[in-house]
């Protein structure tokens, strides 16, 4: 019975301050839904990608080597730490379909147990059949039983499609660093039997890769060192799982979700606690007499404290539960559609990370209940008699500013009043600053992110590269052949090869090494500060992100593995900033000084008078315009768009809830002051100004505080884009103004709404009663 009455009181109290409790509820819901939503995305990707890896027996490393001997295989097989090693052949092949899309071809044999496809339809039948990428098949409307032609070693071969499949190596399926997003129309994979491929290579089986599975818990770097030693000169390089575009990107994305799920909700936790604090302090203050009455009636201290704490428990718990439902369903479902267009996995069932959801719930309830408990504990020391008596008017306090008479004496009264109020309600002020800061930060972060990502294409194909067309040269084409094409305009040839790079700490990567001629009119490298630089002789120029990944810096050395030669030690002469496509640059002269022959692989052209027909030459395999490249590179950025919208929405809700609360609380607390002023003859707008200047002040402070936060938000997200991209977010004046402007509009909207509410209150009534 006792509990029943108090419970009814709680419900009615909550009803009376409904808008404030709704705010607490909303903040809690948002905090938890972001936490659980983002976290569930990470868990979803993590779970399903691991399932794929497991069921397809994904290798740990892939060793590139041309036609390994039986002895090589035996050596690897007997190396400690290696469980399995299998040979295969892989290369990019063209197809006969429209626009000649590329397929990554892998060979397999009946004995293969590593990197097997995840078959979704059909079964592998005979030697002449092929397993085709399911997404690629869908994009080209191919069915089981159809046949597909591919060009291997200058020879067209037909394969019947036996089965459609997914692949652990193609969850994130992009051809190379010239694209950011997968496009199943242009790229996919095909798996064929090694017996069949013999036909294209004069009846001999061909291999260029050894897939290796480690035994559990080995020092991978150590094993790779052993492999390196065992294979010696014939080793081309080792690709690790991290190196693999697909695995690397998937892991990066999982990490990104984890980071976001950790960082973002904190802001909302904080604001939830602050809102609860201001609401509950006010409520408890208002109910001073009631607390006295309850005490006088003989309620124990504990039951009274629990009574007020319970408000926080109910609201926080309800909010958290709503968040657990909303998070995965709203945030998760929105993101998952985007994820599905990027990552191809067997399942997209949303996984909930229950322990994290529970921890989040406990945290938010700790925020709301803890604060509620704290607000009423303050009043517990007093005797019931004291509580039943009317409270003395609130103490006024002199503030610091008054010691500066040259400022204080010049201030208007209304401003002095505001200054004192602000200082007195520090908590509330802080809450609104945090809220507005969060709002501006999220919006600015979103805008900056959008700008940064949209800028990549322009930077790459406008600043770094200034050609109109780029052509892939036929093997053995020389600079002289190029000269004989008689292209009118500026041309530049360069050699690009994939090479193994090993840092002193054992970190290794397969990277792109670009050999540039001394004059480089169409490739413009920049250092970290954006100053144009040229590639110096006598060492390597390395991109910043790669240097970071390898853990090396200027002046140190790295080793590169030359084909059929041993490792070469290079000094890092310079670090350059490259948005996309990390790698190493060296000069032609230096390349040749190492004993290599400069063999151009691509040709860049800036036309003076455009004549595409010149490119239809035997020396040129394919060519592409810079526009096409840029389009393919940027692809569809809807995922960034979605992220932007989500951030802005959260920012808006944050600002709205916080400011609404602040204004309403401010108003009710000062209703007597305001009524007094009204009676004294202050005009409406003067009174309004008094209420809202405080809002404006905190909004302004919050906006300024939000600027660095915006940069941080953008950086956190950008960091998660993987090893290939090196993005630098820049806070532009326009974006700052825009974010500040949007925030300010929210502030004004809130003010208008609160004003409507204020109008409904009878000020005269306020003067009659005693506080």
């Amino acid at each position, binding site marked *: 019975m006792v509990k029943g009455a108090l419970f009814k009181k709680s419900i009615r109290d909550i009803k009376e301050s409904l808008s404030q409790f709704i705010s607490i509820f909303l903040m809690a819901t948002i905090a938890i839904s972001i936490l659980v939503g983002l976290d569930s995305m990470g868990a979803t990707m993590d779970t399903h990608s691991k399932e794929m890896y497991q069921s397809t027996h994904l290798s740990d490393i892939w060793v590139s080597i041309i036609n390994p001997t039986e002895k090589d295989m035996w050596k690897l097989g007997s190396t400690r730490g290696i469980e399995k090693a299998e040979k295969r052949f892989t290369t990019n092949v063209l197809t006969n379909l429209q626009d000649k899309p590329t397929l990554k071809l892998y060979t397999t044999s009946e004995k293969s147990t590593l990197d097997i496809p995840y078959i979704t339809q059909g079964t592998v039948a005979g030697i002449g059949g092929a397993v085709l990428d399911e997404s690629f098949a869908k994009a080209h409307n191919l069915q089981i039983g159809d046949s597909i032609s591919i060009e291997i070693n200058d020879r067209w071969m037909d394969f019947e499609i036996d089965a459609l499949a997914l692949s652990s190596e193609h969850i994130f399926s992009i051809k190379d660093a010239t694209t950011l997003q997968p496009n199943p129309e242009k790229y996919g994979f095909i798996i064929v039997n090694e017996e069949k491929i013999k036909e294209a290579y004069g009846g001999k089986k061909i291999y260029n890769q050894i897939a290796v599975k480690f035994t559990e818990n080995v020092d991978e770097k150590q094993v790779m060192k052993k492999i390196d030693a065992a294979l010696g000169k014939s080793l081309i390089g080792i690709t690790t799982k991290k190196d693999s575009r697909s695995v690397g990107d998937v892991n990066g994305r999982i990490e990104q979700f984890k980071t976001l799920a950790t960082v973002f909700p904190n802001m909302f936790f904080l604001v939830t606690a602050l809102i609860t604090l201001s609401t509950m302090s006010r409520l408890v203050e208002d109910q001073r007499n009631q607390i006295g009455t309850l005490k006088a009636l003989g309620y124990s201290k504990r039951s009274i404290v629990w009574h007020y704490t319970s408000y926080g428990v109910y609201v926080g718990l309800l909010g958290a539960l709503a968040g657990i439902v909303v998070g995965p369903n709203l945030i998760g479902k929105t993101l998952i559609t985007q994820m599905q267009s990027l990552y191809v996995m067997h399942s997209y069932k949303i996984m909930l990370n229950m322990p994290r959801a529970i921890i989040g719930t406990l945290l938010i309830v700790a925020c709301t209940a803890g604060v509620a408990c704290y607000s009423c504990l303050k009043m517990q020391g007093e005797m019931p008699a004291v509580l039943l008596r009317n409270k*003395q*008017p*609130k*103490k*006024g*306090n002199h503030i610091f500013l008054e010691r500066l008479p040259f400022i204080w004496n010049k201030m*208007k*009264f209304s401003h*002095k*009043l505001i200054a*004192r*109020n602000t200082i*007195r309600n520090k908590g509330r002020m802080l809450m609104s600053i945090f809220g507005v800061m969060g709002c501006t930060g999220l919006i600015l972060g979103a805008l900056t992110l959008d700008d940064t990502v949209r800028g990549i294409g322009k930077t790459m194909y406008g600043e770094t590269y200034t050609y109109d067309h780029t052509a892939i040269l036929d093997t053995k084409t020389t600079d002289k052949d190029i000269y004989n094409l008689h292209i009118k305009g500026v041309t530049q040839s360069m050699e690009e090869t994939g090479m193994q790079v090993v840092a002193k700490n054992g970190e290794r990567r397969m990277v792109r090494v670009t050999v540039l001629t001394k004059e480089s009119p169409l490739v413009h490298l920049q250092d970290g500060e954006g100053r144009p630089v040229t590639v110096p002789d006598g060492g390597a120029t390395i991109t910043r992100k790669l240097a970071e990944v390898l853990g090396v810096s200027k002046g140190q050395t790295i080793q590169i593995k030359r084909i059929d030669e041993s490792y070469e030690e290079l000094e890092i002469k310079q670090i350059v900033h490259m948005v996309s496509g990390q790698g190493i640059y060296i000069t032609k002269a230096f390349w040749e000084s190492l004993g290599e022959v400069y063999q151009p692989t691509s040709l860049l052209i800036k036309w003076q008078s455009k004549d595409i027909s010149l490119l239809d030459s035997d020396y040129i395999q394919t060519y592409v315009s810079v526009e096409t490249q840029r389009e393919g590179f940027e692809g569809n950025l809807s995922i960034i768009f979605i992220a932007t919208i989500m951030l802005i929405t959260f920012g808006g809700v944050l600002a709205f809830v916080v400011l609404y609360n602040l204004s309403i609380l401010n108003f009710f607390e000062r209703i*007597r*002051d305001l*009524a*007094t*002023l*009204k*009676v*004294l*003859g*202050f*005009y*409406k707008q*003067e009174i309004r100004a008094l209420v809202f200047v405080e809002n404006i002040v905190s909004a302004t402070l919050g906006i300024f505080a939000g600027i660095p936060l915006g940069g941080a938000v953008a950086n956190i997200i950008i960091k998660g884009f993987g090893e290939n991209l090196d993005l630098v977010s820049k806070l532009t004046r326009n974006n700052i103004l825009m974010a500040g402007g949007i925030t300010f509009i929210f502030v004004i909207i809130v003010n208008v709404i609160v004003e409507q509410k204020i109008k409904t209150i009878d000020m*005269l009534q306020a*003067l009659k009663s*005693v506080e």
Partner: protein
Amino acid sequence: MSFITFEDIVREYRIGDSVIKAVDGVNFDILEGTFNVILGQSGAGKTTVLNLLGGMDTATSGKITVGGEEVSKMSERQLTTYRRNMIGFVFQFYNLVPNLTALENVQLAKEICRNPLDPKEMLERVGLGQRMHNFPAQMSGGEQQRVSIARALAKNPQIILCDEPTGALDSETGRIVLKLIKDIARDMNKTVIVVTHNAPVADMANCVISMKDGKVKKIKKNDVPKEVEEIVW
């Protein structure tokens, strides 16, 4: 020539379906520079009359003129201006702004009107010259009420309206406050209207308007009002 006139003033409040006439056909005149008391039990409608006169409420029907201007016809903004320049208010619960010092509370009033009086002088006048920089919370009830009087005076209004100014004070302090109001008003030639349920206070007024159930029962002129010291309650 009367300074304030109320002609057939009615003020109705609608609460749900029922209509309550707080003031029901009130007529009276008040001369400039006099000290007046509106007397009545609670619910008699006296505070409503004061609010109507102070421009804080508008009559349902009837005509109010103050110094030749028709207050009952004014718009809300005009009423605010009227309050600014014509009216000084003293409340039962003082209604000082807790966050401003005594001096600042007085300056607050001064800030908005045309011919303000010096706030410091006003505080000295009410005997608080030493306590100017104290906040309301640091003062006794009587002191707070004196600040509120100083605030009303600093605006240099023509009319001072007091709603139960002694209601929250003990009788000794109440007497001091009343005397202060009366003396200053006389010295400065202000018209004062005090609303109270405290019958003895009426003896110190030039004119006593007794109200009951929203109507004026009796208007009594005292040719020789008593001094505050002579009153006992």
